[in-house]
């Protein structure tokens, strides 16, 4: 019954092989790539309500986002889809051709554990414990020297997707007066017999010399209180000539089992203002930027008893940025009727996350097809890279 599934405009999962990427030296990476990982499983049907489908409202009588033109209604994208009303900035980017929307996106994970789902998403192996490093780290390692520290994340530790052979930066500004250089060198002596502590301390000291913020700003960033502010600083770092080129922003709280209407307003407006803050901070570099949102899985197509949704499958990904060939909704749309659903419960996972990311890493950063298939997303050959995501 595949014929009831509609093909959307834009990219088909074409089977044309990727052009072999030119050997990419580190210097060529003036492109910027930002991942926003939405932990807890974003509700793709709340982000991108298919307002024209009756079945959408049948399954979500209490929480369905009303159609465009009504109070609190979706922001219209086309005759089928709208955006959650808090995503006004993304709506503008869509109209300006700087936003691609991908519905029904899913990794190879089909169970319902956040931790397994996030592990699999981030380790890229197709198994929850299939690799102890992250796909993004391996992709960066394939581009050249693993010691380049091309990538940065905000927080006290790197997320799994950034762990691995390539060294990365960790951005967590000091809230107290910086350590004196005398104190630092004496402590380095004390750590000299402990390779783990010695290396970690050395790297932390280097990072702390790069950025200085007043304690209040530092506190707000370290607490994750203001995602847009964090995004702004990430954007500033990425913009600087010597700064990182790739960043991961972590966004928590998407596990909306209850009260999704209330909770998602803040979640989506934070997401929206963070992407706008990146755009503003990146300035001219926005033209060379892609921001992509990913989540471990989706949520049930129908609402549960507590005005929320439970763990499900297909979710919605956004790709924003000046480098994106935007104004399009891409991929395959499976529909929300009972018979369309996976196991009579979840949005059918029509568009592989790995395909999206393979297309992006190849076209934007120049990660080679060979590296993508063998190291970055092993065992994913059947999941075709999505082509034509970027402006040529």
């Amino acid at each position, binding site marked *: 019954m595949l014929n009831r599934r509609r093909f959307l405009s834009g990219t088909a999962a074409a089977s044309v092989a990727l052009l072999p990427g030119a050997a990419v030296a580190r210097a060529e990476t003036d492109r910027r790539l930002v991942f926003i990982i939405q932990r807890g499983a974003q509700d793709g049907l709340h982000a991108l309500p298919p307002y024209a489908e009756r079945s959408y409202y049948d399954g979500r009588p209490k929480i369905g986002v009303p159609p465009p033109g009504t109070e609190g209604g979706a922001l219209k994208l086309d005759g089928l889809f709208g955006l959650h009303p808090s995503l006004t900035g993304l709506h503008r980017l869509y109209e300006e051709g700087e936003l691609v929307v991908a519905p029904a996106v899913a990794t190879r994970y089909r169970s*319902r*554990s956040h931790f397994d789902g996030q592990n699999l998403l981030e380790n890229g192996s197709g198994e929850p414990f299939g690799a102890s490093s992250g796909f993004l780290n391996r992709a960066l390692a394939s581009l050249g020297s693993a010691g380049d520290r091309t990538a940065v994340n905000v927080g006290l530790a790197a997320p799994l997707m950034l762990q691995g052979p390539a060294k990365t930066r*960790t951005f967590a500004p000091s809230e107290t007066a910086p350590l004196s250089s005398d104190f630092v060198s*004496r402590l380095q002596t*004390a750590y000299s017999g402990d390779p*783990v502590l010695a290396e970690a301390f050395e790297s932390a000291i280097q990072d702390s010399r790069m950025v200085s913020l007043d304690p209040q700003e530092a506190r707000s960033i370290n*607490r994750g209180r203001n995602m847009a502010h964090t995004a702004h600083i990430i954007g500033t770092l990425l913009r600087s000539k010597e700064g990182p080129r790739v960043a991961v922003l972590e966004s928590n709280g998407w596990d909306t089992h209850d009260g999704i209407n209330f909770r998602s307003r803040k979640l989506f407006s934070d997401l929206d203002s963070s992407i706008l803050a990146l755009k503003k901070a990146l300035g001219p570099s926005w033209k060379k930027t892609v921001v992509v949102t990913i989540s471990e899985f989706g949520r049930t197509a129908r609402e549960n008893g*507590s005005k929320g949704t439970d763990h499900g499958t297909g979710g919605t990904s956004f790709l924003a940025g000046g480098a994106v060939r935007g104004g399009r909704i891409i991929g395959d749309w499976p529909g929300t009727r009972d018979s369309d659903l996976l196991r009579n419960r979840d949005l059918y996972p029509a568009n592989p996350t790995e395909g999206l990311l393979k297309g992006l890493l190849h076209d934007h950063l120049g990660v080679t097809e060979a590296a993508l298939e063998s190291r970055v997303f092993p065992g994913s050959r059947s999941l075709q890279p999505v082509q034509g995501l970027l402006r040529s």
Partner: protein
Amino acid sequence: MTSRDAFIAAHRFGLGPKSGELERIAPDPKGWLSAQVGKTGVPGDVEASMPSEKITRTLAGAASPDRQKTRRILREQAQSEVNAMLAHRIGSENPFAERMVLFWINHFNVSASRGLTTALQPSYEREAIRPHVSGRFADLLYAVLTHPAMIEYLDNNNSLGPNSPVGQRRPVKINENLARETLELYSLGVNGGYTQQDIIELAKILTGWSFPGPNVFRAEKTFRKRFPNMEFEKREGHAAFYRLIHEPGPKTVLGKTYRGEPGSELRAVVEDLAAHPSTARFLSTKLARHFVSDTPSENVIAKLSSVYLQSGGDLKVLQAALIELPEAWEEPLPKAKSPYEFLVAGMRAMGPGEINHKHISQGLMQMGQQLHKAPSPQGWPDTEDVWFAPARLLRRVEVAQLLAKRYGRDRNPDLFLEQTIGPVAGDEIRRVVRGAPSGADAIAFILASREFQRR
């Protein structure tokens, strides 16, 4: 040799030595630990706030003008008990017992992320965790699953059986959260061999276990008229069962069908989950990771698993087995202290004195481990790659410096070194301490040293 064992007993099994403690326990480190087994009851010096039942009833019954005020009072009460418990741990003479309590609190993590879980956190430790930490794992699991704090944290109060008396009157749904985490995080473990169907069936068994709140009151309204002879609320210690929202009928979990009286199936399934070999292995792996190494050997895991299974999941026997585990006494510094462990060890080393709770909570926040606020049901991690990541390490060093400035000014650094890390202190740290420009700096170096940061 014994003083090295004293270091291991005090730092790895305990919460770091108090002044003079290393010397005191050196003659018999294992005996010192064994004497603490079982001393996990509610400590006498911690004043208990309200029982959980009173908290839930107070909140559920508070009329809206008083609600804000009631919430504030409950929050303050909870905070003061949390502070008292922290002070107790800093001064405790039974730090191994306290470490076991902390281990299980983290295993069954309830984050103080909502108003109600914040208010209930101390009662959760007092009512569900402490009474069972030295008892049977099955009883611990049962007490946790039926405690209002866990029920609120994992939404079991929003899980209503579609075929329950209430479900037959209006559309309601089951929430699988608590059932999923029970299998994945609390018992069998993620690769323990269960399916999505097992989760659903366990979720059915869990329906009805709740606490007084909106869903229950709504059900009561309907119930009083229609089922005048059915018991509305069945209380069992700190737990409450509501038949009106319980999904009736037989349920099959892991191939076994449970058909007891409504409300009695949970006890039976918990017994079976606790006795499952996957549970033995999962718990043993976590314990071995906590007490032996980030990557414990198969041998250690197998040993603990077999103790667990042979003792019928007796946690007291398991504690004794941990103390006797030769592998736990081989290396002095294989593990990273978590920020909490580091701070508590630092305060214990500084000796008795007033505890500034604001400083402590600021320090914990700075190092990324806010008290009772682990980001997910998984609790805090227990490996050095997390706790010694560069940015976190730098925060620890900053906290070490703050501690030294605040509490370490007029201390004798040589004595402080001997009484904290003496038995294992390397040449590097001894040299750095000897050459330190000030006493406070010397203390800061000791606190920041690998010997103090590890356990």
